[in-house]
């Protein structure tokens, strides 16, 4: 049908282009970095050892072979696509001979679980509270808004740190790092999981929430003065209905966009929060990989987030007419 031809197929093509471009750029990024993975590995492998210069040269050759860095960049590029399409992301340099697939596989569930939850919850609660605030301007609202606006600019690592100090030091209730015991989905695992995830989740929630609150309040306030809301108010519709179906619902277009994009970027993890709370997610993995110019890990993780965000963007675009029926595919 024409919708398919006119909109969906080109959009899918765009999706493909975006992914290919994105991946190509991330193929180049670590390679443009001045940090040299071979040098890094040399340092790691021979720390405190005294090697003959000849041995150093020999080792360097060996590492190039191990890491698959022989050949020109173009050759490497095509080899990379070949491996990628075969589902193999290659070995990590920093953790050789560990496979990147395994490393990401290990960290991914933690990150995805944490971020999916906090992103969605922050989004929902933020919109609810923000819309409430738009709907009931007044003292209490100003207070809530005040708190949000005060929390919001505090850098999230400071918030994380305050939580850390408060609940692991002064009130030592939560563990210092993510401690997970038992097999997945056993009671013990779930208990330790919740125990370990609580603080990072709350931190992320708070920061995400206040942003969403501010957006929702701004959008809600604007929407309140629209004719349909005023008419429905006149008609004595209950507040809850007005807020949900007449105010919040009508502001969904940018909100859904944001939700989509942030869901997509879940795969890049959350760096500082993970680091502060010792949470075993992708963020830390990525950071270390960047520092070590661990090309394969960097590409593996960014690949996930590229596909994730591109897909989220695709879904978001396709969902616009559902979110606002006036929007037409064009």
């Amino acid at each position, binding site marked *: 049908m024409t919708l398919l031809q006119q909109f969906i197929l080109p959009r899918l093509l765009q999706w493909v282009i975006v992914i290919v471009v994105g991946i190509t750029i991330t193929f180049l990024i670590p390679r443009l970095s001045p940090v040299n993975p071979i040098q890094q590995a040399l340092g790691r492998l021979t720390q405190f050892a005294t090697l003959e210069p000849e041995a150093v040269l020999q080792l360097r050759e060996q590492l190039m072979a191990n890491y698959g860095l022989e050949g020109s960049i173009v050759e490497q590029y095509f080899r990379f696509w070949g491996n990628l399409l075969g589902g193999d992301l290659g070995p990590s340099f920093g953790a050789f001979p560990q496979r990147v697939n395994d490393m990401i596989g290990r960290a991914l569930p933690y990150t995805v679980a944490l971020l999916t939850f906090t992103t969605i919850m922050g989004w929902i609660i933020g919109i609810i509270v923000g819309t409430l605030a738009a709907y009931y301007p007044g003292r209490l609202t100003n207070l809530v808004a005040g708190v949000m606006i005060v929390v919001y600019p505090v850098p999230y690592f400071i918030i994380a740190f305050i939580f850390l100090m408060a609940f692991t030091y002064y009130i030592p209730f939560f563990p210092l790092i993510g401690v997970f015991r038992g097999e997945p989905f056993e009671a013990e695992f779930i208990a330790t999981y919740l125990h370990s995830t609580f603080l990072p989740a709350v931190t992320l929630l708070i920061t995400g929430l206040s942003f969403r609150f501010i957006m929702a309040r701004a959008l809600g306030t604007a929407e309140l003065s629209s004719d*349909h809301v005023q008419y429905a108010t006149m*008609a004595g519709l209950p507040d809850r209905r007005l807020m949900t179906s007449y105010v919040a619902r009508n502001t969904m277009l940018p909100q859904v966009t944001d939700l989509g994009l942030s869901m997509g970027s879940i795969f890049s993890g959350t760096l500082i929060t993970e680091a502060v709370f010792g949470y075993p997610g992708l963020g830390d993995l990525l950071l270390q990989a960047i520092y070590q110019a661990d090309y394969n890990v960097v590409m593996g993780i960014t690949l996930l987030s590229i596909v994730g965000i591109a897909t989220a963007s695709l879904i978001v675009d396709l969902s616009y007419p559902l979110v606002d029926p006036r929007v037409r595919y064009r």
Partner: protein
Amino acid sequence: MSPETAASAGMEQARVNEEARNVVEAEGLKAWYITQAYGVERTVKAVDDLTLAIREGEIYGIAGESGCGKSTLLKALLGEIVSPLTIVGGKVEYDFDAGKIDALKQTEEDREAIRWRRVSYIPQGSMHVLNPVRRIRDTFHDFIAAHQETTREQSIEMARNYLQELGLREGVLGNYPHQLSGGMRQRVTIALATILTPRLIFADEPTTALDVVVQRGVIELLKEVQKRENSTLVLVTHDMGVHANLTNRVAVLYAGNLVEEADTSTIFRRPRHPYTRYLIESLPRMGDRSERVGIPGRPPALDNPPDGCRFHPRCPLATDICRQEVPPLLPVEGIGNGTGPPHRVACFHQVDAPLEAGEIEHAAEMPHAD
């Protein structure tokens, strides 16, 4: 009121007069738009010192030129006073069965109790007030469920039947507002406002986007509902044909003032205010293609209305007194049977003559009274 239909409008009117009590009473109502911030200072006296009473069970028409304050009056009567609209003076009271309610001081609870169950409102621009991202069906459910216990199925069923009476296909329920034509949207709003059979309906130009056939159908339906429930309809429309066909009484507004009020036939037969006479005479008639002119001059800007009678700059009969004094709205003696609401006119130079066709052409030649 008994369901039996009266044989003629005149008889019906008499019965209304005898039995009914006033559902809405406005006294000395002054509803002004006061803008005084951000570099703008303006007071628009959109409704100025207006007194009227609307009886239960009647259809009360309001006519007047564009911008003369009809919509403002309705908003004031509805008690929907949103800044910059300000009630500067006067009061509005409802009287349903249980004592008087001050319409201008409705609390949140009053509003919830009264709105849509007792008083409802079809705003001007009614094609524009539907939530663009909500299907008609859901909007109906919202409006119905807000005021009575109902399930989704029930309210949709109600809506479906009602919309059919308004000549809308069933599929409309599944549509979004922008998928409907202007007239269809307008009918949806009419349905939303009347589906709960309120006792008092304020309708502000409800049929502007309807073709004559549908307009007639819709109006008949409103009338039927009104009759059946003995509810009261306050109808603003420019279409004098609709006034003639539908209303029991007509009030004519000019520049925020009530200038004449009488039962429909009197308004059309023996209007006394020069402005009313103009208004009725300016109607084009089918089959007549000769050049027609509107009322000479333009209505005054309401932020700076003329002194005295506001119509005097355009009035062929105007004299000095008109320029200096505001004519009071007084009942006309000797008209009606004494029990019904009187014919009221605000003019120093009332014309007491039946309206002749073609009068307007000679307006300029109307004799000056002094």
